[in-house]
């Protein structure tokens, strides 16, 4: 079984800082990590390889330093990796990103499965997985929280939706986007880290992928950012200290009055 896992390097959410004057995100000096939700995709891919045989290939689109994310994926059990990087890709929205990644996956060759994290914690769109699937004309199974198994070229999964979990079967190849519940990511092993150090990771750019330059980067992106601003935090907290029975009753009364004023109930 050949599995491709697209991953993204993102800034550590906890350390995201804002430039108060411009309202933009300060990226300098911020620690970069593998998108936390991609770890579940890597883990389930490695597990499927362990039980079915085959290989797992990680692919990431980003600046040259995204190679660190790919090396970490190798340390977790991924067999090989490809970096998709080119100045021309800068400013790509989800459409252009999906176009580039889908073409990179095509170049990697035949595959049975593509497994993505449900979304990245920075852009937060969750669109790239389904968009890669659309471009490659694959069925997409989104919000997968359990992989039951594979048999005769089919895969059986659970898909987490609003009212519960759907049980679905799909022909392979197909694309899954997975949520946290699907797996419990392992830590990189010492041997994995050694392998990652030695790994040679090819870089695909616009030339290697033979892409249409009008479809990548800012120019190829249908969506344009008009402005970025900081959300207004208009909340002012009415805080009541309630350390004894009397005070608790008082606090409850005030909560009741507050909720009535807000016309919540």
């Amino acid at each position, binding site marked *: 079984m050949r599995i491709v896992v697209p991953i993204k390097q993102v800034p550590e959410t906890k350390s995201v800082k804002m430039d108060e004057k411009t309202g933009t995100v300060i990226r300098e000096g911020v620690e970069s990590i593998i998108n*936390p939700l991609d770890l579940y995709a890597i883990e389930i891919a490695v597990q499927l390889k362990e039980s079915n045989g085959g290989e797992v290939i990680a692919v990431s689109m980003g600046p040259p330093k995204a190679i660190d994310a790919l090396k970490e994926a190798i340390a977790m059990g991924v067999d090989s990796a490809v970096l998709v990087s080119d100045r021309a890709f800068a400013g790509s929205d*989800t*459409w252009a990103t999906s176009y580039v990644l889908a073409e990179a996956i095509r170049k990697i060759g035949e595959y049975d499965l593509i497994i993505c994290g449900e979304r990245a914690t920075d852009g937060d769109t969750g669109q790239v997985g*389904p*968009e890669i699937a659309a471009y490659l004309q694959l069925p997409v199974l989104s919000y997968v929280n359990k992989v039951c198994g594979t048999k005769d070229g089919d895969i059986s999964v659970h898909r987490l939706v609003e009212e519960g979990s759907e049980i679905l079967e799909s022909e392979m190849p197909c694309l899954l986007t997975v*949520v946290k519940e699907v797996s419990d990511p392992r830590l990189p092993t010492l041997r994995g880290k050694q392998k990652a150090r030695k790994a040679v990771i090819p870089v695909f750019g616009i030339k290697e992928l033979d892409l249409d330059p009008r479809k990548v980067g800012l120019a190829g992106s249908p969506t344009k950012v008009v402005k*970025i601003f900081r959300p207004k935090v208009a909340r002012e907290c*009415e805080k009541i200290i309630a350390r004894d029975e009397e005070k608790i009753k008082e606090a409850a009364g005030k909560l009741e009055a507050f909720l009535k004023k807000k016309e919540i109930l």
Partner: protein
Amino acid sequence: MNCSDVWILAEQEDGKILRISHELITRGIALSQKRGCKLCAMVFGNNIDEADLQDLVDRGVDKVVSVEAPELQHFLIEPYSACMHDILSKYKPEIILGGATSTGRTLLPYVAMTAYTGLTADCTGLDIEEGTNNLLQTRPAIGGNIMATIKTPDFRPQMSTVRPRSTKPAPILQKGRKGEIIRLKHNQKLLNSRILKTGFIPNEEEQSLHDAEIVVVAGRGIKKAENVQLIRDLANALGGTLAATRDVVDRGWLSYSHQVGLSGKTISPKLYVGVGVSGAIQHLAGMQTSETIVAINNDPEAQIFKVADFGIVGDLFEIVPALTKMIKEGKLSFVK
């Protein structure tokens, strides 16, 4: 291409139109009035009641196009996307709004990619730009730390998914309001699927987190699994749904379907009550657009109070049972 009208994807389950569809009507009315165009709705399903389609008209939709077949009973990506493309080519929508639901967030990107057009995810604000008549889409990003306004100036249709509960459902304007209802004859060629739905496991909680008007969230401050019951009791007394932070789920005290935050669900209920929730930035990302936020925490400096409207500082093991008791005994009248 001559595009003009605003369209919504009206979602249904078992033939019944879902609340998110009514919320999209609210959005759609505002946009179509500003643009001076019609508001249209597309529905995919099976055996949908005429009354349900008329109800969309009663709430403000001018034209409803319903595509029905047994293969469209439940959401399956291939038949749904094929039928949506069919509507794109027949009616040439200018704008398409879908819910940021498990269906909308799968279907719209799939269609936007093939149609080569722009899609903006999980919008909380929509407007029309003066002069250009372009759709302005505002959404939170980076865990809600920033807001971005995005437009799709040169590609059509302009597509957005809209965060559930970010606006009120459209009320009925007039019973029997005049509108066009078209039952589009389905084309069997569009209904092939490589995915088969073989079963369904319903949620443990009675009411789904997405639909809940009141959500009570258990945080690490509850200390152990047995104490989940205290929070469940409060949720039940309030008529709300129980949820949890990542810490509580990772410890196995509640299942993943309860998790709110960056690696879980994003919710926007009328009332959020956080009990023993510290307010880690990853949690705030999933709840800070809630209408009203109430927090109960022992630590007066807890981050959660920074986004809360009302806070009670004290021991949750004393406060929560007391609150539950008062509500049950009718001493607090804020229960529906």
